[in-house]
């Protein structure tokens, strides 16, 4: 039996284990890390396949381009570090080397969002989806739990071309059963149907949105919840259909409200079906140190605050 709903698991550990599992049958898979293999969990792969694991040291630009070189030799190259370093420090390497040449490199970045926690703003990447979204050829996936993470890593291994997978540091409660789950690339997942408002989210805020929905239901608000696990290519049609139904869209993300899924949804709707969209997320500020949960509350990303804010928006 696979993973089940309700289990709280580390998505990073799931990533590492999935990669190590794939490594058994896929000799073309290699992994590159930049001295964070015990945090990104590529160490799971490294321990099993030492010859196919490369530690670039604290050198993210070199790590990305080394992965590119390995891909040029026909390898399926996974490269991992924290999201801040992968997409921030090595942006040009991702854009000009990986994406422009359309190389088979999978950037699996961990510790995205404010929930990095105690390390503070320097390590809390809130702009990565925005940075990756503007790059042609790039695919962006954001899993909401370990079931999705596993499926996405497997998908990335089979997909030909660059992929960015955004993982949180946080352990997440499964919202899917592995045994009856099928990842549909590029197809937004309607988790709950509703008629009053559409909540579009992904990653670690999916469970919060689902819980917020329950609170809202008690107040007579029937929210539709969409898991936008694939940010690029964007499933414009599902977004439009839902917006047409509810006529009120709210995006929720552990990312800056600039250039993330809020922006992607606004772009899709303003061109096709002008609808009021409210973006909930990090409001153009840097993060700060704190315990994960404490930060989620402060930035109003937990179910309680979300429900409160959504209720206000709808009034």
């Amino acid at each position, binding site marked *: 039996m696979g993973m089940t709903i309700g289990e709280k698991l580390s998505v990073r550990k799931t990533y590492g284990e999935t990669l190590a599992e794939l490594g058994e049958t896929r000799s073309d898979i*290699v992994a*590159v890390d930049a001295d964070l293999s015990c945090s990104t969990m590529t160490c799971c792969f490294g321990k099993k396949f030492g*010859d*196919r694991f*490369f530690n*670039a*040291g604290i*050198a993210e*630009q*070199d790590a*990305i*381009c*080394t*992965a*590119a*070189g*390995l*891909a*040029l*030799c*026909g*390898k399926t*190259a996974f490269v991992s570090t924290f999201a801040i370093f992968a997409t921030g420090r090595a942006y*040009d*390497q991702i854009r*000009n*080397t990986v994406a*422009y*040449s*359309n*190389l088979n490199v999978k950037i699996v970045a961990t510790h995205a969002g404010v929930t990095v926690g105690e390390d503070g703003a320097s390590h809390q990447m809130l702009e990565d989806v925005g940075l990756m979204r503007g790059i042609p050829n790039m695919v962006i996936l954001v899993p909401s739990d370990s079931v999705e993470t596993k499926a996405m890593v497997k998908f990335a291994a089979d997909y030909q071309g660059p992929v960015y997978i955004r993982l949180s540091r946080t352990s997440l409660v499964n919202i899917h059963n592995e045994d009856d789950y099928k990842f549909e690339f590029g197809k937004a997942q309607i988790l709950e149907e509703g008629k009053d408002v559409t909540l579009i989210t992904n990653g670690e805020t999916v469970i919060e949105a689902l819980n917020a929905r329950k609170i809202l239901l008690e107040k007579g608000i029937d929210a539709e919840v969409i898991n936008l696990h694939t940010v690029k290519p964007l499933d414009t049609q599902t977004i439009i259909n839902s917006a047409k139904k509810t006529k009120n869209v709210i995006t929720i993300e552990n990312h800056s409200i600039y250039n993330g899924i809020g922006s992607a949804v606004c772009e899709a709707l303003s061109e096709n079906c002008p609808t009021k969209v409210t973006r909930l997320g990090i409001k153009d500020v840097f993060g700060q140190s704190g315990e994960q949960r404490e930060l989620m509350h402060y930035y109003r990303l937990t179910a309680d605050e979300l429900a409160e804010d959504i209720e206000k928006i709808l009034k």
Partner: protein
Amino acid sequence: MQTKLSPIELSKLQKIAHEMRISILKMVYNAQSGHLGGNLSAVELLLTLYKKVLKHDKNWKKSKDFQNRDRFILSKGHASAALYCVLAEEGYFDKKELMTFRKFGSKLQGHPSSRFLDGIEVSTGSLGQGLSIACGIALGLKLDNIDSFVYAYLGDGEIQEGQIYEAMMNAGHNRLDNLIAIIDRNGYQIDGHTECVKCVDPIDKKFQSFGWQTLSVDGHNIERILEVYEKAKEIAIQNKKPVAIIANTVKGKGVSFMENTAAWHGKAPNKEQYEAALKELEEQN
């Protein structure tokens, strides 16, 4: 590999190098953009590599031996005109296409792009990334037990990029004895002499301290270039360490008023300058 050239062969290569300089001039003039200085300094190094050293096949992916080819990465992507001349010379495309350089719809993009042209391993242009890519390829080749070499061609100004040192450390640490870097030491970058803008010397000691071996050569002497390539491969394998060849070159080589000046790094000549340059080059034949 053949290390000695017959006088006939040598003169043939020198003639091609001469023709390449004229083509580069015409291409940049025709495009009214491009990088004359750093292309003219790279002619003999690239020509000798492709003609005498690099295992490659113009049929590219259709070649039976494609996976065993040697790899070439033009990390200083702005030397694209010189590389295109060599690739045309080697039959990758018709020489007539050279005059489409930098034009809309051309395979010959301003900086080399694997999207547009067979024979280009990977797109380059943003400096500092090629050596890391070469390290990745070198590691990949080792993983597959393919004993091909990877050549990365770098500008001297380019080694001001911090990523170069990450890659140098990578290659040194992993003892990448299938990796050879060529540093086109023409002394100039856009804003002036490298030692005035931000000194890069001593280049050899920098590489050595990162676990590399270094060789130097007159980057315009085809016989010496061939010898140094041979020597580089030999000592790489022998000592299980990567090799950097510091090739002393002249920026703008062949056109007196373009030589040893930063002014011609990225400038296209006007009609008068073009004609004067062409006349000089033609007289050298």
